[in-house]
């Protein structure tokens, strides 16, 4: 999993820097594009992912302590945060598509959809992984002696959150 996390972070890191470079070359275009983004939605999604990370961290802590039911509830809560994020993002995309913009509209929108779409897919995968862990928790007897699977799932989720922590200020907040 750590190799996967490492590769994903390198890929996103390059995309983030490429976005910043493209914005420095076409500031007016990016300003127009960013002006169409909803900062409130971006901030709400940030709070969702951070809350998801909190839930996941609490879930791992509970599972390690042998508190299986609590660990499962916290992990389900983390997955739910991811699910709400997916819903919010889907509404955001629907709004974009309704105005006729898409991946090939201009450089800004190409980067916007690549960055956030790629991240969206990672959130979806993380939700599935967390849901699997929450469902398996009562059946697998994880505890202090073995919490490898929950910890691995948590690591993937935290990576997804870490990426958004950079993406949010870069795409939604910072203007040229």
């Amino acid at each position, binding site marked *: 999993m750590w190799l996967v996390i490492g590769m994903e972070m*390198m890929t996103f890191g390059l995309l983030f820097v490429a976005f*910043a470079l493209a914005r420095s070359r076409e*500031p007016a275009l990016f300003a127009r594009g960013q002006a169409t983004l909803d900062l409130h939605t971006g901030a709400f999604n940030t709070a969702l992912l*951070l809350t998801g990370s909190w839930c996941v961290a609490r879930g791992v802590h509970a599972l390690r302590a042998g508190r299986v039911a609590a660990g499962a509830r916290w992990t389900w809560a983390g997955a739910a945060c991811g699910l709400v994020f997916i819903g919010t993002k889907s509404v955001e995309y629907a709004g974009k598509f309704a105005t006729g913009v898409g991946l090939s509209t201009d450089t800004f929108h190409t980067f916007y959809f690549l960055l956030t779409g790629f991240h969206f897919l990672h959130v979806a995968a993380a939700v599935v992984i967390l849901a699997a862990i929450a469902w398996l928790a009562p059946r697998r007897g994880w505890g202090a002696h073995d919490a490898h699977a929950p910890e691995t799932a948590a690591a993937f989720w935290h990576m997804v959150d*870490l990426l958004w922590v950079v993406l949010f200020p870069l795409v939604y907040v910072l*203007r040229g």
Partner: protein
Amino acid sequence: MKPIALDRLWLALLAATAVTWLLGEAGWVDAAHAWPVLLVFGLALAKGLIIALDFLELRHAPAVWRRFIVGWLVVTLGAILTLHFAA
């Protein structure tokens, strides 16, 4: 880390996000305002470190992964800021 400590860190993360949101709403995170930009990205670094070191527990992990994640945060955010201020 004890649950209460995780809870406090979560609240700190939300507070940092609120500050970023407010500065963005005020229209201060742009080329005309240096300190709000530095503050927003400083908060992003702080949030990333909390997630990496405390939620992801890299504080107690082998140094190689802690250095990779922290290094990634510093280099990525640094590159973004460099490109912003150089533009």
